[in-house]
C-alpha cells in the first residue's frame, strides 16, 4: 500500500494518534460490532418483529420489546462470562467471614472459565500477530492448533513414568514442535517457490483436521466406542488452581509470559527487528542483506509453534483429551483478534481476554436466550472489517481530524 502517512508529525500529535489507533478505534470497532450483533438479535426475535409491525400504534412498545430482547441476550452473555457481580461480592464476604470455599468457587466459575477460554486465544492471537509483523498471513493457526494439541496429547498420555517437571515441559514442547513443523512447511514453500501462504495454510488446515479424524479413529483412539484420545497423565497436566469443575490453570499465566517473550523478541532483539523490517519492506530488507527465505521459514515456524502451544494449553490445561471438533474455530478467531490487537502482544492479550469472554458467554447466550453461538463469528467478522477499514468508524462517529496510520499486512500472490 502506497498510502503510508508521512511521519513528519510532531511528537504530541503522534502520541495522540497512537492512542487513537491503538485504543479508540479498536474500542469503537468492538462497540459497533456488538451493536450490529444487537440488531441481528432484534430482527431475529419474533416478539420484537411483531412489536415493530405495530410501530405506529405504539412506538414505545416496539422500542421496549427490542430492548428486552437485546438485554436478555447480552445479559445472558455477561452473566455467563463474568458472573453476577452481587453474588461474587457476597461470596467473597462469606469466604472472608467463614472460610467456606463452596459458594466462592461457584461465584467465580464463569469468570475463571472465560479466562480458560482466552488462554488458547492468547497463543493463537500471538501466532497470527507475529505473522503480520513479517508480512505473512497465517490463516493456518487452526491446523497448527490441531497438530499441536495432538503432539502434546500423545506425549501426555503415552509416557507414564516421568516426573511432572520433565513430563509437562516435554508435552508443551511436543505441541510447539508439531505446530512449528506444520507452520514451517507453508513458510518454506512461500520462501522457496513463492507459493502464497494464505492458500497453503488453509490447505494445511484441512489436512490437519483430516489427520485428527484419522488419529482419533485409529492410532490414538482410547478403548470404547467414541472417537476420543485417552486422558493425559496427571504428570503432564498444567496444574489447576481450584478443585473441579473449575479448570483455571497455569496455562493462562504461561500465555502471559509467552506474550512478554514475544514482545521482547519482536522489539528488543536483532532478529525481531529483522522480521519487522522484512514485514514492512521486503525489498529494502533484502538490500540490507537480510535473508527473506530464512525469515519466512523462521517466522512461519514460530507462528506454528505459538499456535501449537495454543492447542497444547487447551489439551494439557482444560480438556485433558481430544475429541472431534476439538478446536471450535480458535484459529479463525485469532485472525480477528490479532487485527484488533494491532498485532502487538499487549493488544493481543487484551483482545484475547475480550474474545474469551465473548466466546464463553455466548454458550450461555445460546442456552438461555436461544441465540446460536455463531453470532459471535458474525460479530467478529464485522470487527475485522471495522478495524481494517477505520474510515468506516471515522465516518460513523464523525471523527474527522484524526489521522489514521495504516500498516501493510499482506501482499499479493508470489511477491
Amino acid at each position: 500500500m502506497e498510502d503510508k502517512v508521512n511521519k513528519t508529525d510532531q511528537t504530541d500529535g503522534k502520541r495522540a494518534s497512537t492512542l487513537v489507533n491503538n485504543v479508540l478505534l479498536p474500542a469503537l470497532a468492538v462497540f459497533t460490532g456488538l451493536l450490529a450483533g444487537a440488531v441481528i438479535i432484534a430482527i431475529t426475535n419474533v416478539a420484537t418483529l411483531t412489536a415493530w409491525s405495530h410501530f405506529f400504534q405504539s412506538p414505545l412498545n416496539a422500542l421496549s420489546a427490542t430492548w428486552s430482547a437485546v438485554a436478555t441476550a447480552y445479559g445472558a452473555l455477561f452473566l455467563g462470562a463474568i458472573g453476577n457481580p452481587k453474588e461474587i461480592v457476597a461470596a467473597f464476604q462469606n469466604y472472608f467471614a467463614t472460610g467456606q470455599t463452596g459458594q466462592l468457587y461457584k461465584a467465580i466459575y464463569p469468570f475463571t472459565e472465560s479466562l480458560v477460554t482466552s488462554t488458547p486465544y492468547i497463543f493463537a492471537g500471538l501466532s497470527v500477530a507475529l505473522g503480520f509483523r513479517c508480512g505473512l498471513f497465517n490463516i493456518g493457526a487452526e491446523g497448527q492448533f490441531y497438530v499441536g494439541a495432538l503432539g502434546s496429547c500423545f506425549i501426555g498420555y503415552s509416557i507414564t513414568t516421568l516426573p511432572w517437571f520433565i513430563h509437562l515441559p516435554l508435552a508443551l514442547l511436543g505441541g510447539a514442535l508439531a505446530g512449528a513443523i506444520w507452520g514451517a512447511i507453508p513458510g518454506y514453500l512461500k520462501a522457496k517457490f513463492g507459493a502464497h501462504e494464505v492458500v497453503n495454510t488453509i490447505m494445511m488446515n484441512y489436512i490437519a483436521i483430516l489427520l485428527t479424524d484419522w488419529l482419533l479413529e485409529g492410532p490414538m483412539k482410547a478403548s470404547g466406542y467414541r472417537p476420543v484420545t485417552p486422558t493425559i497423565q496427571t504428570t503432564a497436566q498444567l496444574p489447576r488452581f481450584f478443585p473441579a469443575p473449575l479448570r483455571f490453570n497455569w496455562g493462562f499465566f504461561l500465555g502471559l509470559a509467552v506474550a512478554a517473550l514475544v514482545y521482547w523478541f519482536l522489539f528488543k532483539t536483532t532478529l525481531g527487528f529483522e522480521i519487522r523490517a522484512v514485514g514492512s519492506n521486503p525489498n529494502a530488507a533484502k538490500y540490507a542483506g537480510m535473508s527473506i527465505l530464512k525469515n519466512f521459514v523462521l517466522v512461519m515456524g514460530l507462528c506454528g509453534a505459538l499456535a501449537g502451544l495454543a492447542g497444547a494449553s487447551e489439551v494439557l490445561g482444560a480438556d485433558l483429551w481430544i475429541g472431534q471438533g476439538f478446536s471450535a474455530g480458535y484459529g479463525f478467531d485469532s485472525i480477528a483478534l490479532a487485527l484488533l490487537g494491532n498485532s502487538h502482544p499487549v493488544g493481543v492479550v487484551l483482545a484475547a481476554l475480550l474474545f474469551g469472554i465473548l466466546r464463553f458467554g455466548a454458550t450461555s447466550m445460546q442456552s438461555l436466550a436461544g441465540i446460536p453461538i455463531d453470532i459471535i463469528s458474525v460479530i467478529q467478522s464485522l470487527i475485522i472489517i471495522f478495524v481494517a477499514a477505520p474510515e468506516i468508524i471515522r465516518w460513523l462517529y464523525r471523527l474527522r481530524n484524526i489521522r489514521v496510520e495504516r500498516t501493510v499486512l499482506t501482499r499479493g500472490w508470489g511477491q
Partner: protein
Amino acid sequence: MTTQSLTKEQATSYTRQIFIGASLLMTALLMFILFLQNTKPGQTATFGTNLSGPDQPVKIPDIVLPVQPTLYVLIGITILLAAWVLIRGTRAMGWLISIAVFCFVVSFLVWATQDNSFSLVGMLGTTLISATPIALAALCGVMSERAAVVNIAIEGIMLTCAQTAVVAATLTQNLYIGLIVAILTGAVIAAIHAVLVIRFKVDQIVSGTAINIFATGATAFIAKFYLQKDINLLNNSGTFPTIIIPGLSKIPILGPVFFDNDLIFYITVMLVVVVHFLLFYTPWGLRTRAVGEHPKAADTLGINVYLMRYVNVILGGMIAGVGGAYFTIGSVGRFDQDMTNGKGFIGLAAMIFGNWNPIGAYLASLLFGFADSLQLKMQILSIPIPSEFLAMAPYIVTIIVLTGVIGRAIPPAADGKPYEKQ
C-alpha cells in the same frame, strides 16, 4: 546480465536438475515398493468403459490390464524420465513431471483395482461434477484478479449463495428462482468486498477473510435458527434434472460423460468459453487486463480504473453465485453447515495453475476434480488406505500445484495492489 549472476543461475538449475531427477527416481522406487510388491502374478485389473445404462447403442469392450506387466512398464517409464532429467537437463519440465504423475496415478489405479473392476466412465463423470464448483470459483477469481482485485472471499460467497439458493428455491418451489437469487447474493457480497478494497482500501486478503468468517457465522446462524426448525419449508428444494442432449449422448465413453449432465455443468462450460472470449477478444477485456497490469497507464488512456474493478469483481461474484447454487440446488437439494469445504480456495489454486486464463483454470479444476473423484471411488474399492488420507488428496494436490514445480504462473502485474488516482 553479469557473468557472476549467470553462473549462479546455472548452479541453481544444476541443483534443481539433480533434485528433480532424484525425486523421479524416488517416485519409481515408491511405485515399486507400494504397488508392485503388493501384487501377485496373473492378476488383472478391469476398467469399465460403459455405464450400466441400457441405452448405449455401441458397446466398447472394457479395458483389461494385466497388473504386474503394466506396473513394470510404468515404473520403467518413470526411470527413463529420471534418466532424461539427469542427463539432458530440465527442459520441458512441465511435461516430464506431468507424465511422471500420470504414471504414478495409473499404477496406483491398477494396483487398487487388482482382481476388481472399476468404471472409468463413471470416474470421468464424477471428475466433471467435482470440478464444476472449483471451476466456477476459479472463473470468479480470474474475473476479479484480471482487474487486480484479489478475491479470497470466494469460499464465503459460495457458502452464502448455497444457502440463499436453497431457501429461495424451496420457498418458491422454483429452482430457477433459486439460481437467480444465488447469483444476486453473489453480486451483493462481491460488491461489499469491492467497496471495502476499492473505496476503503482495506487489505484485500483481510477483507476476504472477514467475509469468509462472516459467511461461516451467518450461514450457521441461519441454519440453526431457521432452517433446522422447518426443513421442508425452507431447506428441501430438490435438484436440477439432468439434461440429456439427444444424439450426442449416444457417443461411446464421451457421450454419457459430457452430454448427460445437469444444468450447472453446461452453464459452467459456457461461462468458461464466454469469459475467455470476453477477456481476450473484446475491448472490455482489453481494458480489464490493462487495469490489472498497469492501472496508471489505463487511467491515462481514459479508462475508469475503479469502475472496471467494481464491474469485474461483481461479475465474478455472480459466477461464484452459480458455483454456490451448485452445492445445494445443483447436487443435494439441502444446505449443510460449511458444505463448501474449501472448494473456493481450491478454485483459487486452479486459477493460479491455469495462469489466470479461463480455459487453463478449467483444465486445472479438472485436475482437482480428478483428485476428488479418485478419493471417492477409492473408498468404494476398499483398499488398505484410510479414507481420511484419500480425502486429503485434493488439498495435497493444491499445495503441490502452488509450488509451481509443474509450471510457474505469472499473476497480473498490479494484482492485489489498491489504485490511488492522482
